[in-house]
């Protein structure tokens, strides 16, 4: 297992937001965390790479407990792509170079530049290499953030709602990119998502949360309409259309 989480808990002022969550994830796999708004998906994600300090539990990456490591060491194992991205007057190349921070001495080496170059080429961002971030579209900016996380050379990629605020084509593009990267680099990825159909299409496994707890952890092709309905409190059917499983709310 590249990621093994057990009994992870986090709470604010006595209220448990993440409650005894356990799951594991094999290399080359994508896990989608699903659940209603405010159920603790993002909090769980941020506990994994210790952006939030969990109250208890362990997060093992290749058998090392990352909660005992320094921030810098954690950043060498987890690449994190937040939901909100900042765009300043920084070139795409420099923005991706920032991903080398956890490996960096005082200034970037030839190797750092080479890694960044490879990542940018891989994501097809080369034509934008010297453009400033504030001149990019939302989809392009999201790709830069993915590239930055990849430049960290992590074992696990974390994405907080990678498709929020993107149009349909950009949603498919970014999920396709994640799929490709995970397969190609043999890393694994954890995504929080709202679009259950997209999760069924792109993820290998789904973790469904309700009030901070894990309600179900199943392979994506085994996820049933009943389970989805129970989590969201809404009757749904899962139908196969043109070979794709899609979720249809029945209201």
């Amino acid at each position, binding site marked *: 297992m590249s990621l093994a989480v057990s009994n992870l808990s986090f709470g604010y002022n006595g209220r448990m937001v993440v409650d005894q969550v356990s799951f594991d994830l094999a290399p080359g796999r994508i896990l989608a965390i699903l659940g209603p708004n405010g159920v603790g998906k993002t909090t769980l994600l*941020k506990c994994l*790479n210790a*952006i939030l300090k969990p109250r208890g539990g362990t997060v093992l990456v290749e058998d090392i407990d990352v909660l005992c490591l*320094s*921030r*810098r*060491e*954690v*950043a*060498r194992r*987890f*690449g*994190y*792509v*937040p939901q*909100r*991205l*900042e765009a*300043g*007057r*920084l*070139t795409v*190349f*420099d*923005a991706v170079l*920032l*991903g080398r*921070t*956890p490996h*960096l001495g*005082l*200034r970037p080496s030839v190797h750092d*530049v*080479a890694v960044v*170059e490879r990542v*940018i*080429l891989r994501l097809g961002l*080369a034509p934008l*290499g*010297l453009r*400033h971030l504030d001149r990019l579209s939302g989809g392009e900016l999201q790709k830069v*953030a993915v590239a*930055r*996380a990849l430049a*960290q050379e992590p074992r696990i990629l*974390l994405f907080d709602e990678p498709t929020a605020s993107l149009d349909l084509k950009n949603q498919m593009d970014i999920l396709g990119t994640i799929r490709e990267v995970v397969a190609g680099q043999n890393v694994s990825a954890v995504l929080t998502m709202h679009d259950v159909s997209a999760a069924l299409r792109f993820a290998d496994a789904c973790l469904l949360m309700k009030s901070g707890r894990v309600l179900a952890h199943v392979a994506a092709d085994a996820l049933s309409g009943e389970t989805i309905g129970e989590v969201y409190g809404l009757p749904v059917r899962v139908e196969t259309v043109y070979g794709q499983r899609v979720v249809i709310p029945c209201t």
Partner: protein
Amino acid sequence: MPAASVSLRAGYLAHVSRRRLAVAGMLAALLVLGALALSVGAVRVPLGEVVSALLGRAESPRIGLIVLNIRLPQALAAVLAGFGLSAAGVVMQSVLRNPLGSPFTLGISQAAAFGAALAVIVFDAGVMGSRQADAVSIASPALVTAMAFAACLAATGVIIALARVRGATPEVMVLAGVALGSLFTAGTMFLQYFADDVQLAAMVFWSFGDLARADWDDLAVMAGCGLPILAWFASRAYAFNALDAGDETARGLGVRVGRERLLGMVAAALLTAVVVAFLGVIGFVGLICPHAARFIVGDDHRFLYPAAGLLGGCLLLAADVAARIVVSPHVLPVSVLTACLGAPAFILLLLRRRA
């Protein structure tokens, strides 16, 4: 290797060289302005004589005295103060995620002035003089700097607390800065109200931001406090770049966000305190120079920081030279000139943010 790859790396390296060249150009401009600052004034010293005076071979002892003991410390103070205020502005803008941040707009310079005034008037850390250029000679630089720093820390504490409140927009923070600035200015006025005539005159001259009062001793303290902080800032370029990308991204990149923010603000406050304690409040340098530098080299702190600092030095040197020429033979305080440049630039920045 595919052609795209070669051109990508080559393009980036060319981009890096261009920014290095821009910084080198600013350094050259600083040296030219520095030479000018040593030459221009009530007594015009030709550049050739400036050089021989610097080498200790002045043609007359009077010229040697003017260049080495009056103009050189003044020029170095201009460079150090300009670099320091501008660097403090860059750091504040980054750690507070606020493009309008600077020692002056956040009220931290005014706090420093109050702390220094308190030390001078109440704790007798300075000796009042009757000449304008030497209105207050600081008898205990350590006490004055320490009190200026303490007042700066108080203002900084308010600003940091405010930055933590969700929804504190840059404008709100600047308004809080205005409030803090007014409060500390009122405190300084309170001290002046109870001062006697000589003290009052001296304090008024002293509260003008002015470079003419710098001598070698002042400069030694400023450099002793300022240079280590400036060196530390330079080593944090990547951490500040990460902070610019947002707190969560920065944490995800392994940066200890809370620690960088706190240390950055405290160091910037100390830098401001040292400059203000010796030279008075010189406004807007820390706001306009970082933005000019952002426009030229972008937001990458590896280049932004030296560029902003050098521009700060250039601006104060230029303002100092202009201050000696404009109403010659009188010499204006430089803060009058920086405000004339800075206030319109600040309003322009506000308008651009609205757009």
